């Protein structure tokens, strides 16, 4: 029996209650907004960069437990990573939330999201902040359009 606890792992409930790196950043190098108008989830991701490496990352906004916990876990893991590393990690994470399969050892707390694949309507919640972070990290200079998952 798949139950609701598969989706809301303890790690997720914890990050939802006490999100890490939560708050606006004073002097961000880059900012991107992620938006799901269908459910009203909306987050802003703030970055400070060292070249193409993330030095500092925070997020702010509101949404469901899955999207908030995902943003919280993500920010905890992206600090110090390069754009290429982020992309690779996102690719593993995306595989995880769509298939439930844990291939890689370096997912760490992200593996708490394995249950999401049983809740297809919630996959977008799990990936929303990632889209925003990638959007910010990839497009230096420009004022990016808000990314949306619908």
């Amino acid at each position: 029996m798949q139950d609701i606890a598969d989706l809301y792992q303890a790690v997720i409930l914890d990050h939802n209650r006490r999100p890490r790196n939560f708050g606006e950043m004073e002097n961000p190098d880059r900012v991107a907004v992620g938006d799901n108008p269908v459910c009203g989830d909306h987050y802003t991701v703030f970055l400070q960069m060292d070249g193409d490496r993330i030095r500092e990352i925070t997020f702010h906004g509101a949404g469901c437990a899955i999207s908030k916990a995902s943003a919280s876990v993500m920010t905890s893991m992206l600090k110090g990573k390069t754009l290429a590393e982020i992309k690779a990690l996102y690719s593993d994470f995306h595989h995880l939330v769509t298939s439930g399969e844990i291939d890689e050892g370096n997912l760490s707390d992200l593996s708490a999201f394995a249950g999401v694949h049983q809740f297809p309507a919630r996959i977008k919640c799990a990936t929303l902040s990632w889209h925003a972070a990638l959007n910010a990290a990839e497009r230096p200079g420009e004022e990016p359009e808000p990314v949306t998952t619908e």
Partner: protein
Amino acid sequence: MKKTMTSIREEFPVLDQQVYGHDLIYFDNAATTQKPRSVIDAVSGYYEKDNSNVHRGIHALSHRATEAYEAARARAAAFIGAGSEKEIVFTRGTTEAINLVASSWCNRYLKPGDRILLTEMEHHSNLVPWQLAAERTGAELVFVPVTGDEGLLQLDRLDALLAGNVKLFAFTHISNALGTINPVAELCRRARDQGVVTLVDAAQSVGHAPLDVSGIGCDFLAFSGHKMCGPTGIGALYGRRDLLEALPPYHGGGEMIRKVDLHRSEWKGVPHKFEAGTPHISGAIGLHAAMDYLDEIGRKAIYSHDRELGEYAAERLRSLRNLRLLGPPAERAGIASFHLPNVHAHDVVSFADRRGLALRGGHHCTQPLMKRLGLESTVRASFYIYNTKEEIDRFVEVIEEIQAFFG
């Protein structure tokens, strides 16, 4: 009700299933209702016996299909108390019916500076078409405000608003987001007193309450079959005959013309002028069966059943801590919408789903109303003929479980 609850439930095949090991409790009726056996069979029966194109043929099947299609129109006219079947235009649903008026009526009558009056509680389908019309014609939109969480229209402002060069007033009969029941007859009367044309969005009322357009006194009224036990893809626009006759056509194509030359055409009379192309024949026939079904139960009985469930749910929810119940204090339709400050609507709905409970979470296509309430979304339970108080008790249990889980 004339039928017992057991017999009603047995008539809806979809209810007889389990979801994640729990009996399905379907509380998403404001989005769409389930279909009784008689409607499903009317659609199949049409395809099995009479399927043919309408209007243009004189062979037996075509004649049967035409008769059945036009009988559905006459039935719809009688169902809502229209004076003639010529006042019924079949559309895909409420949305298309409103778009038809926002296109044909607005293009003909509105000029820059004219105003369209709406309310702050409208469904996007009764808002966005008018935004597009306003952009095309240079007209402006103005809005009757909604009071706070009670979700009532601020009617003391109405006459002044109507007086401000308003040409058309479009509003919902029952709010799909909050369950508010608006005093439609009064609204239409006050509009008529100032020479303002009215459109009633009856998506949430035609299948839930006795309804009579002549009593209401509206000029246009729109509804959807799928929200009243009928098939998807069919609905109707009621329009006062003289108003419909004065309108230009909507779509061009087969069936709606009288005579076609290469460069110009003449239209049929109402309502066919507005129905271009092969219509949704099986949909109209299924809708006919749905109207028969609802009248068999009795719309008065349905109305009191739905409202009783709405009141009961509201009462039970009010007793929960940390829950913000929205909607009117009394006179509530069968809809209970609420906000849990500690749990996002989508988490509520996902969780409830694993208990077999179908709820809706989100903005319910009423983003401006949500903004007015300072919310992104609410959780909504909406009831219909086959729902019971026992289901509501179970639902309240699940909400309590959710509050404890995320608490």
